[in-house]
């Protein structure tokens, strides 16, 4: 019987079994951010410990950094203190820092892949749950807590239990106007936001095989929202083509050796899975959420379930959620007025996400609705520069989007880009939890970037497929 990629990679990184089922696992790449690392560094200092492998440790300030264009422009002194501490810690311990002062910053889950740091067969840890993103390359990548950040800094290892593996296959092909984000939201809808607890998700099938690396990152990014600690895609020619030539990718003879190792890490054809789920690409439509958990979603054309259709035990809680969201059971999400539109995040803040939007906007004279604030926030400085080079910044600006500097921004509401009061946000981000976008009463509707753009222009949630094909050009072209 063959092995899955998860088993191969996990086993290769096990140092010892400390207690039954508790493994000391080597971490090949440790990524840091300014929110979950400062207490860990403080404890190292108090114990007189050093960072054991600085060369394997990379950090970025992403959660609380300003996207106003001035990275030292902080509204909150706590945010300023976090970013300042990050710079000091990275310097004091001699770690690799994507320094905002040098314009190298961005969301760590965007920066590490684009620099070629993320590679197949690695075990990657970071004090952020969306570390699952890196699984797109065939790595085992997962989020950890602050005390584990300290442990990895000190020992380059942590204590970990072995997960089960569920293969999630998406067969056939996607309809036009359906994106990786929709596939992810559909998987979460079908399997549940807690359905993946205890599992690693292996994504495969014709749809995933045909995905670009950026689409695979969107999918794996949301594995954690399906409850899976990590998600991954087996590495293939798409992976290698993306990696070739990047800053930290191997070169020459080392490249050939690396490709051989990467090929060997793929799940065997006869691998045994703990579970297999097969979904049809043709069944997936653009998805929108209506609640405060990412599995509370419907295809954009469908109605929110009627309360009577739900199990009795769920009715009261669901009614309360709908009340919070200002939505009604049995009614469609389509037509919900929005106040804010957000393009960005580690889920959908890469070049192809903005390209897909620009394709719909370019040359059509479409404008963001007057009552909507629309933010376009590149996932990294490099993404930002690429968008400028392609003229996509101008397309967005002419449509009425604010084209901002790189960071997590309105995904987590830890900088000045926050919702106010009960504002409703059409968002390309990853979590619709209460308070997530910075206002305790703010409302988040998750969707793909193209759906966000359609909502921004229509001023309400709309089916982007019809909206962009039927909306007449309005004069001036970009």
């Amino acid at each position, binding site marked *: 019987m063959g092995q899955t990629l998860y088993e191969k990679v996990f086993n*290769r*990184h096990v*140092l*010892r079994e*400390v207690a039954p089922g508790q493994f*000391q696992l*080597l971490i*090949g790449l440790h990524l840091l951010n300014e929110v979950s690392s*400062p*207490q860990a560094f*403080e*404890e190292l200092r*108090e*114990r007189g*410990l050093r960072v*054991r*492998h600085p060369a*394997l440790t990379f950090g970025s300030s992403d959660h609380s950094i300003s996207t106003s264009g001035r990275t030292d422009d902080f509204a909150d002194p*706590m945010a300023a*203190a*976090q970013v300042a*501490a990050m710079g000091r810690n990275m310097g004091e311990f001699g770690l690799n820092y994507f320094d905002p002062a040098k314009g190298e910053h961005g969301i760590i889950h965007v920066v590490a892949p684009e620099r070629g740091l993320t*590679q197949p*067969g*690695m075990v990657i840890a970071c004090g952020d749950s969306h570390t699952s993103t890196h699984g797109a390359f065939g790595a085992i990548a997962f989020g950890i807590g*602050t*005390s584990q950040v*300290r*442990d990895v800094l*000190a*020992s*380059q*290892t*942590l*204590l970990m239990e072995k997960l089960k593996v569920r293969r999630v296959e998406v067969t056939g092909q996607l309809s036009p106007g359906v994106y990786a984000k929709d596939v992810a939201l559909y998987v979460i809808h079908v399997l549940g936001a807690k359905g993946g607890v205890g599992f690693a998700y292996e994504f495969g099938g014709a749809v995933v095989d045909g995905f670009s690396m950026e689409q695979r990152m969107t999918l794996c990014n949301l594995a954690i929202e399906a409850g899976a600690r990590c998600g991954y895609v087996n590495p293939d020619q798409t992976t290698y083509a993306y990696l070739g030539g990047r800053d930290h990718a*191997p070169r020459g003879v*080392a490249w050939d*050796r*690396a490709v051989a*190792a990467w090929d060997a890490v793929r799940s065997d054809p006869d691998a045994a899975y703990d579970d297999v789920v097969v979904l049809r690409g043709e069944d997936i439509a653009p998805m929108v959420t209506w609640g405060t958990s990412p599995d509370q979603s419907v295809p954009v054309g469908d109605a929110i379930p009627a309360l009577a259709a739900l199990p009795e035990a769920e009715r009261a809680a669901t009614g309360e959620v709908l009340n919070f969201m200002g939505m009604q059971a049995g009614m469609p999400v389509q037509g919900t007025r929005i106040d804010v539109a957000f393009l960005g995040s580690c889920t959908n803040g890469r070049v192809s996400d903005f390209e897909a939007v620009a394709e719909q906007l370019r040359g059509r004279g479409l404008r963001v609705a007057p009552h909507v604030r629309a933010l376009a926030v590149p996932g990294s400085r490099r993404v930002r520069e690429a968008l400028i080079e392609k003229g996509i910044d101008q397309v967005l600006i002419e449509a009425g989007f604010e084209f901002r500097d790189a960071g997590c921004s309105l995904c987590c509401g830890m900088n000045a880009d926050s919702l106010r009061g009960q504002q409703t946000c059409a968002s390309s981000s990853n979590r619709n939890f209460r308070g997530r976008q910075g206002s305790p009463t703010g409302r988040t509707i998750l969707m793909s970037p193209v759906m966000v753009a359609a909502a921004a222009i229509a001023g309400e949630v709309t089916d982007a497929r019809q909206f962009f094909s039927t909306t007449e050009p309005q004069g001036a072209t970009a």
Partner: protein
Amino acid sequence: MSGRANDTRIVRVTGRGITIHGDDIDTDQILPARYLKAITFRGMEAHVFADARTAAKAQGQPHPLDQQRFSGGELLFVNRNFGCGSSREHAPQGLRRFGIKAVIGESFGEIFAGNCVAVGMPCVVASAETMAALQRLNETDPQTRFTLDLAALTMTAGDQVFPVTLAEGRRRQFTEGSWDPTSVLLAAGPAIEEKLAALPYIAR
């Protein structure tokens, strides 16, 4: 916790006591939420029971943590369901940094008790009668010295001995010094580098 030696074993804790009466004292009371945004646990001791202490002072009856007679106490005597509520690591961090080395009570919030293990501060359970006796001894004569013995699972004050309980796994984590995950991991020593060097992407 500075200057911790390599020996992390915790078998006996001896010191004077501090009594805080009351059931269901949650972690929000132990460490109010507004102190969670700090970038360090250092100084967290100043915020332990911040709101309760301010309120007590305003009423002219200082909180036990502010009472001169309990100053320097290292064993905390509490009642039922102490540390229930949110999972914040800040609550045990604050208590430990305040100088508390062990908490003895009728029962504890489960996550809190687990977080206390990771800072090397055992939470041991005693009967309601034992707690009443310990709190009475402590309040009658605050100079009384107590010894928590994790090998014998007893609390001793003078010639009085009281039984206490602690889950066996946790008890061994303290007595064998394996409560601290960092120390357990570092114990692997140079094997870490040997194994790292064998990884294809490190060896390359």
